[in-house]
């Protein structure tokens, strides 16, 4: 009987996709100037860059912020920095000195962006998932 080696038990490359929050593959930082918000979106790994470029479009981000009626949403791509910059006009309720809301700076809105769902290869999910989130990824069977 041939003993199993590590190579034998390693799974073949998993080409299936999982739907995960953007937070698993990227992180974000919000900044404000007046009534304009910018969201820097930084890839946690270079493999995330093309996924985000294809899926997190300016149109999709505008739809995510639709309740705030953005005037214009622009995405700038920064392959050198493995990052993107989203600029959203007129979404801060007039800005920090005019907003009636608690977050006139829009500082929390980076996490609204990070809640967006993206399709990611299951392999990448496993590589990036923290212990707690790993069980939530559909590609990993629950015990």
């Amino acid at each position, binding site marked *: 009987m041939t003993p199993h080696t590590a190579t034998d038990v390693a799974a073949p490359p998993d080409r299936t996709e999982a739907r995960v929050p953007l937070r698993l593959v990227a992180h974000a930082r919000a900044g404000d100037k007046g009534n304009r918000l910018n969201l820097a979106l930084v890839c946690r790994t270079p493999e995330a860059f093309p996924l985000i470029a294809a899926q997190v479009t300016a149109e999709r981000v505008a739809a995510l912020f639709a309740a705030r009626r953005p005037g214009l949403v622009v995405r700038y791509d920064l392959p050198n920095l493995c990052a993107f910059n989203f600029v959203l006009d007129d979404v801060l309720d007039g800005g920090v*000195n005019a907003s009636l809301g608690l977050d006139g700076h829009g500082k929390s809105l980076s996490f609204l962006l990070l809640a967006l769902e993206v399709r990611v290869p299951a392999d990448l999910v496993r590589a990036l998932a923290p212990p707690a989130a790993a069980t939530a990824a559909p590609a990993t069977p629950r015990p």
Partner: protein
Amino acid sequence: MAEGPDALVRIGSGAGFAGDRRDAAVPVVEMLRALDGPRYLIFETLAERTLALCQLARRQDPERGYSPALEGFLAPVLERCLASGIRIVGNFGAANPVAGARRIAAMARALGRAPRIAVVDGADLAGRLDPEGFAAREVGGRLLAGHPMPVSADAYLGARPIADALDAGADIVVTGRVADPALALGPLMHAFGWRDDDWDLLAAGTLAGHLLECGSQVSGGYFADPGIKDVPGLDEVGFPVAEIAADGSFVIGKPPGTGGRIDRFTVTEQILYEIHDPAAYLTPDVVLDVTGVRVAEVGVDRVRVSGARGRPRPETLKATVCVEAGHLAEAEISYAGPGAAGRARLAADVVLARLARRAPGLAVRVDAIGIASLFNDTAGAALAAAFPESRAEDVRLRFSAQSTDTAALGLLLDEVEALYCAGPAGGAGVRRHLTPRLASASCLVERDLVTPAMSLLGPEAAP
């Protein structure tokens, strides 16, 4: 001037905003003391609205109007900086840099020292334009039209007067409104002798300043997301120190023994902080292009940044203009336990129904903390969608309105408080606040309307 091609200039950040930790600069100064060569400590303490508040303070007392944070930031480090040749640059002069400089002179005198203190003034646009002139120059132009004279109007000055102050031998430079990155670019122009049209060098120095001006935001602050982005020692996060070379490239590090983290992720987030077009970040000194910037981890908590490009500075200067805008009323009440969301929703309906009769013109925003607040919108669409489904069992209801009609705002506060007895069951923890509001707008002004001025404080100045 920094000697030789290998000379490094070191700039540490002591504060990234007026509310920053008062003891953050102490480890930065300890690190700088152990090093040779030109060393600077910079403080950024002015939010958009701060200048208007300081202008109001100055009207009450001509010796006030500098940042109320000035003493708190300087007291822990002033003596050691002066003893070690660490020069200080801060915008804590706010609406009254000369008074701020006099206050620092008095603090130094109490320590038995007499430093050379320079004042950078000239940002204040009062008297340079009338209300119509400001309104005509407003970006997006909605707030200022028809408004009386602004409370404050200040242009963002560039780095040149700071460099001039250091050229003149200042140990401490006190400014009012300057572009935040200029706090670092000024020392670099002085130390390396960069000219006003060395665009790529000015861009590099501006990028260094941009990464330093928010303090710990580059070194682990505003970053931690447990399980995804962990930051060790956030309770003692180390503020950044940049080592800048004559070619403008630099390494961002932090004091040994402090918490926080510096890597390509923290630095990249901060490179893009408050940036719009990454190819054109407008400052008074240069137009910065970060699209070619490279970020490399060169050691533990050490990141090298290079590749900034610059283009000629804009023709106009940005100015922040503040006008009085009535008051902001905020009132809160909480509901907890089974049915909390339903009781909170009823409470909101009760308050809005009564205000519709008693203060019909008042626009009230309602948030429900625990259901929809930060991600809610002023029209309340997100909350309206979430309320019927919500099973939240700890809900804080928040009402807010802004008006010049303080009687109407008082009615809102009273109606929320009245929920204690006359509202749904179990309403608890009412808090109510009425605070003056200053609205701000951005203007673009011609450079010839602004006269930056640098002067050294005379030895007789300390009060």
